[in-house]
């Protein structure tokens, strides 16, 4: 497939590290940082982590302590600063009038579903009682404070959680204020005053956090290892020795307030680890590439990866490699003395470093909020003492690696249910766990949550005059529409074909087959201007500079391999300096006679789209609506610059799209650029339709966990302001929908006596949605292996008064409109277009594409 396989491989690059943990967390009080970089402090010996739940200003509060066997866990757990991954406390639904009563849709047929959620059951009238504890005379040491307090098992009881000031109990003490007296070993009498400050309902944020701590503790009791945010089982790893990979099975868990219940959502997670150190990896790479390219290749492969240190359980992101340093370099310790890395690791961890000439890795700790401008220096890591985790870009694009991995990590709905069930079973069987849960008056449902969803009607595909039905189960109409006329075609009068001596055969095969397949779809084609170049990138560029004119409609390059630098150079030139649609084809994709026709057809369709042609459409009943898609690409190499792709529809059938992109440097807000894009899109819409759209619907992808608040508070007001600035009388309706693909939520359909993937078009807007949001899930795509992932849609702003049912249907319809795939995809087409655009710009072009291309799908 032309660029498809490649694009997919590329499209995945790096953006998938959802399990990336917050790294480099040190103690709450950062040690005075020396000027020189230093290895991370031996934080094991120090206090790590501090919860959000800090409550009253306590001197040296060390996190909440939970009774009997749970003490060693503080609310901060580990990770130091904890982001609000679940976007709690963002209540957008109340502001959207027409969904306050109901946010559920109505159309479609019902379907019996299960999901990987378990209800948390608390006994009736359950509450968590929060007390404030005072000592007179004052006692400083937390340990002593707690020892003194718990001398009084009467009236406090055995079950409690205490952080030095705040005390949580599962029961209410007789009086609002309780006074007890304790005696220290020195014979001092201390009065302790316990005052009730709060009665927390099971749904309070504090309680939710409390449940999560208890549950994480259970996972530790199960002997699972924490890596990043999740817990993994090191005891039966799956090894894939031919790639030196090790897969640890594990779980993601979170307990949250859902529509009607507090539930535990748990999914199987797989952690890919490597049984080689960064140094081993460097050695292997050194043997594979030429000396002069070694450093560059090394940086490319390693930067952005997460490494795990040998001597403590911490993960770090590699931000740079310092080739001028080595383990013999020294750094200043906090006590002021100088020590070399070799000696430090020998002394602190008894770790021997054998290669004294290896470079060192540099990791920039993430900026931490709440610490008054204290910037912690970079963390220096020794390659020999770091294990690699996750996959490199090269591995991701290596088909055999991914295939070998998929065998182990892709689970069918039945397998997934089984694995998740094992966890919940353990919770029920383990005595310690049960005892603790019981003491707090909590338990978990044994069964997966079951409920009813809906499957909306399948969409018909309109192409030219014809209407096509297809099997909705497979969500694919490539067979039905093959070789039939398209909605609109662009003739190919003047086009170039670049090839090398080695790809000549492939190039002529391509031309022959294009002539065979284009008449059926209605594309008129002249012979290409054939240009032979040699393998070097400069040769391609020279040919382009000489031969591409303003009349050139399209350039096709047949490449002998998928070397990225050549591809990047061609794309960069043809997207910026000399704006011309282009199509790169790797010769090998044309090598199989049995598929060559299909490949040529796909290339022809893609070429047509790039020149502004249209393929198919679905019925869109809403009139005068402009759909916007936004997605981000994070450029890990270029100083973590982010690129937002912005795509907006231009016509009723959603077959033409306008595009722009925004560059965002580190620390810069995205919104300013988006305003410019929206203004430009409105102008383009006006010139296409001679009037302004009356509705604008924005699908916003690329929103990280915990960023929802920023979006609601900044981005949405900016959109509104931008619309206001257009004119006094212009008052379009606006809807903003946050699209999320990376979820732990799974749905299983009860069909044919077993659990299967829900069919495409399954909509879920009950039970697992959040009460404070106007949100829903859609399973739009169909997968052949494993379990399908639903997509989550969260309408954060909506003054359109569009019924939830219509919003859901429209969203589903848009998943049919991505022209690089004759089937239904996971997200609305504008999001996928925006992703493709941002990816092309971020990976290859690194500059804003020429605006003259903005009304075509040149980035496909």
């Amino acid at each position, binding site marked *: 497939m032309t660029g498809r396989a490649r694009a997919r491989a590329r499209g995945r690059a790096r953006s998938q590290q959802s399990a990336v943990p917050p790294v480099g967390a040190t103690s709450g009080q950062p040690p005075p940082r020396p000027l020189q970089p230093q290895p991370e402090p031996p934080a094991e010996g120090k206090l790590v982590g501090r919860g959000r739940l800090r409550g009253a200003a306590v001197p040296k509060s060390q996190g909440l302590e939970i009774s009997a066997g749970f*003490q060693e866990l503080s609310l901060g757990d580990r990770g130091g600063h904890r982001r609000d991954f679940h976007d709690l406390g963002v209540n957008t639904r109340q502001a959207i009038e027409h969904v306050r009563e109901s946010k559920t849709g109505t159309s479609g047929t019902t379907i019996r579903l299960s999901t990987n959620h378990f209800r948390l059951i608390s006994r009736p009238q359950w509450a968590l009682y929060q007390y404030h504890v005072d000592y007179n005379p004052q006692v400083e040491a937390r340990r002593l404070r707690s020892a003194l307090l718990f001398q009084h098992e009467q009236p406090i009881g055995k079950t409690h959680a205490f952080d030095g000031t705040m005390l949580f109990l599962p029961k209410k003490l007789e009086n609002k204020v309780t006074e007890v007296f304790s005696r220290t070993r020195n014979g001092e009498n201390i009065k302790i005053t316990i005052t009730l400050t709060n009665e927390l309902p099971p749904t309070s944020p504090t309680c939710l956090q409390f449940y999560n701590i208890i549950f994480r503790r259970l996972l*530790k009791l199960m002997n699972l*290892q924490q890596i990043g945010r999740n817990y993994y089982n090191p005891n039966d790893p799956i090894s894939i020795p*031919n790639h030196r990979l090790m897969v640890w099975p594990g779980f993601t868990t979170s307990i949250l307030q859902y529509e009607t219940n507090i539930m535990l959502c748990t999914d199987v997670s797989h952690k890919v680890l490597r049984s080689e150190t960064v140094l081993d990896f460097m050695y292997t790479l050194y043997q594979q590439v030429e000396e002069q390219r070694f450093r560059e290749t090394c940086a490319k492969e390693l930067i952005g990866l997460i490494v795990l240190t040998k001597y403590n359980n911490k993960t770090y992101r590699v931000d740079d490699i310092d080739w001028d340093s080595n383990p013999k370099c020294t750094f200043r310790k906090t006590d002021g003395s100088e020590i070399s890395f070799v000696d430090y690791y020998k002394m602190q961890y008894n770790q021997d470093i054998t290669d004294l000439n290896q470079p060192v890795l540099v990791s920039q700790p993430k900026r931490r909020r709440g610490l008054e401008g204290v910037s912690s220096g970079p963390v220096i890591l020794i390659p020999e003492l770091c294990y690699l985790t996750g996959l490199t870009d090269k591995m991701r694009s290596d088909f*055999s690696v991914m295939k070998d991995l998929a065998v182990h990590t892709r689970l069918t709905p039945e397998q997934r249910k089984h694995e998740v069930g094992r966890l919940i079973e353990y919770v029920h069987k383990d005595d310690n766990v049960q005892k603790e849960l019981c003491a707090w008056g909590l338990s978990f449902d044994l069964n997966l949550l079951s409920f009813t969803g809906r499957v909306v009607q399948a969409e018909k595909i309109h192409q030219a005059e014809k209407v096509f039905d297809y099997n909705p189960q497979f969500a694919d109409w490539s067979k039905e529409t093959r070789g039939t006329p398209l909605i609109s075609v662009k003739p190919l009068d003047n086009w170039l074909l670049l090839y090398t001596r080695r790809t000549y055969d492939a190039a002529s095969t391509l031309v022959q087959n294009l002539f065979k397949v284009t008449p059926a779809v209605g594309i008129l084609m002249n012979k290409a201007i054939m240009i032979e170049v040699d393998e070097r990138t400069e040769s391609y560029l020279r040919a382009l500079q000489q031969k591409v004119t303003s009349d050139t409609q399209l350039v096709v390059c047949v490449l002998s391999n998928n070397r990225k630098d050549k591809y990047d150079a061609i794309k960069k030139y043809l997207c910026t300096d000399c704006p011309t649609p282009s199509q790169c084809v790797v010769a090998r994709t044309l090598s199989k006679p049995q598929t060559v026709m299909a490949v040529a057809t796909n290339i022809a369709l893609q070429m047509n789209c790039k020149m502004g042609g249209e393929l198919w459409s679905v019925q869109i009943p809403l009139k005068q609506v402009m759909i916007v898609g936004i997605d981000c690409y994070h450029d890990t190499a270029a100083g973590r610059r982010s690129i937002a792709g912005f795509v907006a529809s231009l016509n009723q059938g959603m077959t033409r799209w306008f595009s722009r992109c925004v560059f965002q440097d580190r620390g810069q807000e995205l919104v300013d650029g988006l305003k410019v894009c929206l203004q430009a899109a409105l102008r383009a819409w006006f010139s296409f339709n001679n009037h302004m759209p009356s509705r604008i619907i924005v699908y916003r992808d690329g929103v990280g966990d915990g960023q929802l608040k920023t979006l609601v508070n900044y981005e949405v007001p900016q959109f509104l302001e931008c619309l206001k600035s257009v004119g006094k009388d212009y008052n379009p309706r606006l809807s903003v929908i946050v699209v999320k693909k990376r979820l732990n939520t799974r749905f299983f359909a009860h069909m044919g006596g077993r659990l299967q993937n829900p069919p495409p078009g399954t909509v879920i807007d009950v039970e697992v949605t959040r009460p404070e949001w106007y949100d829903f899930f859609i399973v739009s795509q169909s997968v052949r292996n494993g379990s399908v992932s639903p997509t989550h849609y969260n309408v954060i702003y909506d003054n359109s008064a569009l019924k939830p049912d219509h919003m859901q249907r429209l969203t589903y319809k848009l998943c049919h409109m991505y022209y690089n795939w004759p089937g239904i995809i996971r997200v609305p087409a504008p999001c996928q277009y925006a992703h493709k655009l941002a990816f092309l710009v971020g990976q290859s072009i690194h500059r804003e594409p020429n605006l003259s291309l903005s009304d075509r799908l040149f980035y496909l």
Partner: protein
Amino acid sequence: MVADLGCADCTLLWMLKFCKCIEVLAGLDIRENVMKEKMHRLSPLPGDYLQPSERSLTVSLHHGSVAHKDPCMLGFDLVTCIELIEHLEATELEMFPEVVFGFMAPSMVVISTPNSEFNPLLPGVTLFRHSDHKFEWDRAQFESWAIHAATHYDYTVEFTGLGIPPPGTEDVGFCTQIGVFMRNHPKNGETVSSEKHTKHAYKTVFKAVYPSLKDEKYLQNAVVNEVIFGAEIIKRRLLGNFKSERKKHNETKLKFQPFKCCMRCSTNLSLAETEKCAADRSTEPFVDGNKVCIPLAKIFLIPKVNQLCGTFEKLNKLIAGKVALNSDGSAVIVTVENENEEQEY
């Protein structure tokens, strides 16, 4: 084998776990909660699983008093009691020498305790350094106690300390005084067996067994992984050569039949060459159809494999049933995948 009595938050144990010579670590404390607070840092790390170490290591934590005997404390080489004895009540202190020197009887005991002569130099210290201290001894008191205990249980004791006093006050001695006790008599097997019947007085609150190559399961895993990865590398190298040769042939318009047989063993070789070939076959990998055969002898030469297995027999034993071998079990078989299979999204 090292035991830390009064291990508190396990900091010393955590430091000791990095010592490669220690195979058993045990901690004992009377305060279970303090011990549990940070006990998880004594658990194996992901890295310990990724490359299991040569040595075996078991770490356990017990809840109990040093005034009680428990057989789980037998057989240790070193027992440390860092800033412990001053926390003991008089009755417990009385029992202490019998439990440590008499019952546990390790080859070496290290006991540290505050030196009260140093106290005037510490600002804010009135009576004792810590509110839980039952006593603080001067050098003479500690030394007399230590010598008495040592003599009684046939140990030799030497004194040292930590924390040098500021100039001009050298005569107060170290801030903390330390007694290092060495057992005079060799290990006495009888005592151990006679004490076997002692009842368990401690409660085990934590136990972690580190993955180690001494454990057959981890050794086998490590060997199998190295063998398969090594075979993969050899395969790639071989096919890389093979392909480039093929390409050369193609370019010179020589019709060549790929993947027919071992390239070397074509029919019209002279006898000498055939013999050489046969000799080669025992260590040289070759292509057979869509398979690559890599003789175990060759695999055994991989340094990591060699080091892990030690002997060829051991290699054979460890990979049996875990790695695909040819019919006579003399070579590893790696299947060559059809590269064209890829590209299907």
